[in-house]
């Protein structure tokens, strides 16, 4: 047991830690952190655990304020946090519980190519992708959308892109929510957001966003991997991006709009970045409508990026996407709030589930599964559970996991989202001084290209927690299961 500021952390088992609600008068539920001893040591150096406790004070929160092993400090809510609020009980929705990059997420494509087919061509392939995929700060894409188009993207998400003939219909079936959350309200989105979003749909962005060519280097669960058409040596493409400036602006607008709202509803907050509104209030609905618009924009964005990647492969290998066997495995959000029905204390409840730096991880369908659960997983994955895509940091492995029944029972069907930062960006740049990160990566067989001067340094592998440790915790805790590990071959970054 250890004491941090005013909170206490108790060990439950090797992978679970509790912040009991009794340790603070304002906590409504416990905080639960999924971590092992090693990760917990780092978590305790930050204020992230305190943030887990702060979230436990929000109205309507049920079961516990949860944190995944990749937890690190965020605005108001920690990154790696999951919080579910009972809508009928006055539960709130908070823009800080979703984050600025609404529906930042990951898409994975698989191909029929194997490592042997690409080994000697990696430098050409990375150059092709770097040329074809718009990335970096302030870089616009080849697609320009009018405000009218953007409103349709808000309403229809990835489907709009497919209807425009810019992407594949089959991709929608294997995208979380079919690439479109219903109930988006384009009129709740500000002019500024439309202005920022106009030329950014179909661009990767900067920061930790990337597109990678990867190879499956280990398979842990062959039967699940078979369903996903992944086997040892399979070449894949992973895309990590979100809603770009459109989402940032919507989050910023919402935080401003909600400034006075907690006071209006008599909600006292330990941190003003936790601003929130009851889901069933005009302000809550306004944010929900705008947030869904941004989520749909992000799915359209990743759909366009996937299309650009497919075209780059077609051009480079002088072969069609079909004959290269390029098919989408899944696309999943890492920053989102979803209205979902979950069984809590034996009763089905309508919840607003915030996942900020956390991934939905619905388990296999059983007789007990709720309607939302059944509809929430593509039919081809009903038996194995929903695929979960965990990007590692640049130059380290990424993982494919699947959701479990235990996640449904403990975490509202949620798990970790990535490696989690341990070094600030500046620290990373200092750490990289005098080194050539791209040469170091090339020495281990990874070809990296970045638009920005400091992009590779900021995102160097040492800046992140070890993704293996993070994934081992969620696997050992039983809230998801390892299916395959992917090693990067080519990296394109903003």
């Amino acid at each position, binding site marked *: 047991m250890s004491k941090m500021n005013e909170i206490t952390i108790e060990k439950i088992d090797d992978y679970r830690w509790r912040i009991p609600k009794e340790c603070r008068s304002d906590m409504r539920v416990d905080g639960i952190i999924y971590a092992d001893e090693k990760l917990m040591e780092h978590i305790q150096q930050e204020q992230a655990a305190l943030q887990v406790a702060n979230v436990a004070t929000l109205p309507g929160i049920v079961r516990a304020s949860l944190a995944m092993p990749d937890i690190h400090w965020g605005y*108001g809510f920690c990154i790696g946090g999951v919080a579910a609020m009972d809508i009928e009980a006055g539960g709130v929705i908070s823009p800080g519980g979703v984050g600025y990059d609404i529906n930042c997420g990951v898409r994975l494509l698989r191909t029929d190519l194997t490592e042997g087919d690409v080994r000697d061509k990696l430098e050409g392939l990375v150059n092709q992708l770097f040329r074809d995929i718009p990335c970096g*700060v302030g870089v616009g894409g080849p697609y320009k959308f009018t405000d009218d188009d953007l409103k349709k993207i808000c309403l229809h998400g990835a489907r709009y892109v497919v209807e425009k003939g810019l992407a594949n219909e089959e991709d929608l079936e294997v995208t979380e929510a079919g690439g479109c959350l219903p109930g988006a309200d384009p009129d709740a989105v500000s002019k500024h957001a439309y202005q*920022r979003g106009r030329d950014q749909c179909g661009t990767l962005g900067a920061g930790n966003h990337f597109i990678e060519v990867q190879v499956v280097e280990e398979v842990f669960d062959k039967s699940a991997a078979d369903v996903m058409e992944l086997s040892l040596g399979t070449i894949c493409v992973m895309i990590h991006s979100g809603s770009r400036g459109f989402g940032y602006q919507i989050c910023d607008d919402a935080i401003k709009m909600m*400034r006075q709202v907690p006071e209006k509803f008599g909600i006292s907050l330990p941190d003003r970045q936790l601003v929130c509104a009851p889901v069933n209030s005009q302000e809550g609905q306004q944010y929900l409508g705008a947030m869904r618009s941004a989520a749909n924009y992000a799915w359209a964005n990743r759909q366009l990026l996937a299309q650009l990647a497919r075209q780059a492969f077609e051009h480079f290998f002088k072969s069609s996407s079909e004959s290269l066997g390029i098919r989408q495995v899944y696309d999943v959000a890492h920053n989102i709030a979803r209205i979902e029905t979950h069984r809590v204390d034996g009763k089905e409840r309508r919840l607003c589930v915030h996942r900020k730096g956390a991934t939905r991880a619905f388990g296999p369908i059983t007789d007990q599964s709720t309607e939302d659960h059944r509809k929430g997983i593509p039919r081809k994955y009903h038996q194995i559970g929903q695929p979960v895509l965990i990007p590692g940091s640049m130059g380290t492995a990424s993982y494919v996991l699947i959701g479990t029944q235990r996640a449904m029972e403990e975490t509202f069907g949620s798990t970790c989202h990535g490696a989690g930062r341990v070094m600030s960006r500046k*620290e990373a740049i200092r750490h990289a001084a005098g080194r050539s990160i791209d040469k170091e990566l090339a020495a281990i067989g990874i070809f990296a290209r970045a638009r920005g001067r400091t992009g590779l340094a900021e995102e160097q592998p040492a800046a992140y927690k070890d993704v293996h440790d993070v994934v081992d915790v969620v696997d050992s805790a039983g809230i998801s299961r390892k299916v395959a590990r992917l090693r990067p071959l080519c990296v394109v970054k903003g």
Partner: protein
Amino acid sequence: MTKHWETFEHTADLGLQGWADTLAELFEAMGEALSRQICNSPIEQRKTVEIRVNSTDIETLLVDFLTEILNLFNFERFLTGRVRIKEIHDNSLRAELAGESYDENRHELGEEVKAVTYHQLKVAREGDKWVARVILDI
């Protein structure tokens, strides 16, 4: 110099802090601090833009003011080189920003600043100095 700013580190993000003799100089320092994060190349003062910001209190005024500078870049591609606060009260200000349009041949962009946040936000009088801190989401 009666005003000064510097950056500080924060795991995934970037903090700005400033010190000055007066509130007006403090806001000038913070505005210029943000501007240097957006673009670190020399910025010529080719044109001036006057902005007015109304807010609820002095701390949110800082967030709104900085957001205005960020917005001028995001929406008009205007880079701020120098900030002059013409008038400042508890919840409003009037400022003149001197700078120029972004030119990719001369300006190297820095971090993609997603937003100015309210986390650990501070504007206060400490001894004979005004101090401020703000964290940027990058």
